[in-house]
């Protein structure tokens, strides 16, 4: 199987890679670009641990082929904090103890950031449904939902000022 050469942007930086045509974007990110913050929980789109944005749309990177990313822009958990500062969601997750084992955290952060980009003031129900594609087995989601609510508030304030 001959490889496909791909040029894309990851977290704003230009990258090039060669991958087999049937390799998932998740495997490309993890194994070829060393972005191991992208986690594999199932490989079939059922857990959300590998969530990334693809041209600003939230997707499971396990359900995207690396070959499809040509010319596209990818965002991973590694790109959430900017200029050495944690994103309000990252801070809120730590402050609210919204993680226990932490394996689902990168996916939740990417998904929650995508949600707050679309809806800066989501209700509890909206948060729960928007994050339903991300499985967490440790927390019962309680502190995750609270962290997202708290980060949303901080981000709304930041926007105002």
């Amino acid at each position, binding site marked *: *199987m001959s490889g496909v050469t791909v040029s894309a942007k990851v977290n704003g930086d230009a990258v090039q890679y060669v991958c*087999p045509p*049937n390799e998932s974007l998740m*495997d490309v990110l*993890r194994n070829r670009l060393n*972005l*191991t*913050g992208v*986690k*594999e*929980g*199932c*490989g*079939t789109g*059922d*857990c959300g*641990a590998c969530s990334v944005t693809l041209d600003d749309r939230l997707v499971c990177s396990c359900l995207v082929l690396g070959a499809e990313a040509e010319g596209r822009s990818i965002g*991973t*958990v*590694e790109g*959430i*904090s900017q200029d050495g500062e*944690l994103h309000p*969601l*990252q801070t809120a*997750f*730590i*402050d*609210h*103890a919204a*993680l*226990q*084992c*932490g*394996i*689902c*955290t*990168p996916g939740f*952060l990417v998904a929650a950031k995508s949600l707050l980009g679309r809806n800066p003031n989501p209700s*509890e*129900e909206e*948060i*729960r*449904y928007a*994050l*339903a*594609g*991300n*499985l*967490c*087995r*440790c*927390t*019962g*989601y*309680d*502190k*995750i*939902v*609270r962290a997202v609510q708290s980060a949303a508030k901080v981000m709304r304030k930041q926007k105002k000022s």
Partner: protein
Amino acid sequence: MPYETDYTNQKFSVIGNRVNRPDGVDKVTGRARYGADASAAGQLVGKILRSPHAHALIKKIDTSKAEKLPGVKAIVTGDDFPDFTGGNRSLMDTLENCMARGRALYDGHAVAAVAAVDAQTANEALKLIKVTYKKLPHVTDVDEAMKPSAPVVHDWIRTAGIEPAPTTASNISQRNEFGHGDIDVGFAEADVIIEKTFKTEQTHQGYIEPHACLATLGPDGSGELWVTTQGHFTFRNMCASLLGLDVAKLKVTSSEIGGGFGGKTHVWMEPVALQLARKSNRPVKLVMTREEVFKATGPTSSTSVDVKIGAKKNGRITAASAELRYQSGAFPGMWGMLGAMTSFACYDLKHVKSVGYDVLCNRPKVAAYRAPSAPMAAFGVESVIDLLAAELKMDPVEFRIKNAAKKGTRASYGPIYGPIGIGPTLEAVKNHPHMKKRLGKNQGRGVACGFWFNFGGQTCTDLNIGIDGSVNLTVGTVDVGGSRASLALIAAEELGVDYDQVRVTIGDTSSLGHNDTTEGSRGTFSSGMATIFAARNAIDVMKQRAADTWGIPVEQVVWEEGVARAKGRQNSNLPPLSLKEIAAKSPRTGGPIAGHNEVVADGAGVSFASHICDVEVDPETGSTRVIRYTVVQDAGKAIHPDYVEGQFQGGAAQGIGWALNEEYIYGEDGTLQNAGFLDYRIPVCSDLPFIDTEILEIPNPNHPYGVRGVGETSIVPPLAAIGNAVSNAVGVRMTHVPMSPPRILKAIEDAQ
């Protein structure tokens, strides 16, 4: 130096603060490295070939074609694992579970493994391995497996615990009985007796991180293993025993762990990865797929349980008995025994008897799952308790309070209780605002109690003080849910320094003495205890340094709030020396300052919880939604309340999933039908409400701070709490978990 482990009721300054966890930044930025996140130069990819049959003879494994595939570097089968077990049956079970030896015992049982240059080549090689099977009769249901006509999983099994010892093989590996008094006398005294049979289906821990490791093993017999595990020391001992290695020559490092809940207490494919590494003399990375995790790791038992309880009209229970049949998968376990031990632990009973059976089936080898065996027993017992209360026209909470075990009660499994939390959690439930909330149409409320033993075990901890006064604490218990923060709080408390001054590291197996696996809710309890003692050792060193600096006897030095003070009027001219000052001078006063402790942390205080649950059931579809949930549990002392609450909430959520939807579904052919997250259905965010928590603190008399383990008990009550709630909502007693929509709808219609 031995230290006093008794509870001292000391005043705390940092314990109980909701500080930020030390690994938080790494985990929110994607930097934290889990099992699958490590790589080594020249590493190969390992993959495992698994049986598609529930039970089959392996007549032949032909690897010749696969061996010829370019890029394949090693292939192993059962023949590549010589027997180093020295007749230890349990070790042999573990080995045989890692790689079949002539017989595939369940759908997913490993039969061969490959190491190749990349995943594609490894997958290709698996397809080229030709296995000739002869299918054998199988059994997957626990009650079926107990019948004399059932296919026997192992012909060497003779039921233990039966007199006279059986001479023929069966699937019942052991029978265990617990209790006291005479139940016949007790039932004769009863005005009301309720007897019922319950079933629970098999569930999986469902940690989001699949098993993963990176193994190296050279021809000199020394190697390294990077692995996601709850117990790297145990994994080292296991792998060394199974592969004939010296324990000291295998260094095992625990990665960050993406959830375990008991499922990562056991080796599954790590010995295979090491063997592939040895055969290829290359590092081998082996990561399970989710399908493999479901099929070939260690879910908890499916069960079948009979419960009988009798009471007098005044609400006192006169006798209780249970027979508990626990499916242990294809190898013997101790799960029926634990079910029998825990079943009546919440109550003060004069006459009680519980009998547990461990039963083999053609299913994966059962492993621990959070308070293993207790939730199923509690489902039966707490359901019957509710039925009895209803029969006696008593409030179910009052009925429980009336019969709750207390200090001095002889537990149904033997010991006499010290101060315990069952009564207080029930009182807290009774007074909780949740209980006063009015229910709407199709809604029901349920309450249930739960118990777990907790465990202490072998623990070894190192505390090193840096030249700048910062503190490095190295522990050997894996951090599964934030224990590094709790242990740093404990070290800071003892030393009298800021929390931020302490950094906690999980040491690898070559940096500390043996630590038992992080199981039995022991992490914060036992490493906490060892941390207290290690800190006190370091304080002794610092006191000596201060004494030497001052030129006074050490007896005149005390340690208070992070400084050494010289006692007595004659020393009033000596200004106190802070930890930082002592540390700064340490190169000239005797070298590095360290404290060390090894302990067998006995006296893990038992733990109790009571839960309240409200559900709404759609009577036309049988669909159930949990609309409110409250957990009340005794933590002994909550070192870090956020993470104690997190344990309460996480256990409740797992229990809710188990109660309503999660189950292993086997087909007629004995193969697993739903080995994936889509059809296994663990709760998603929109399935759950906020989970309220109330932490009670009834100090454990056997820990200096009063700590009890908190990790497991929270999964014990939910099956029964939801069962009681659903039964109250629809007016029909639910006896089969999960209470999935078809089961509920059928129960409603059968009752009409």
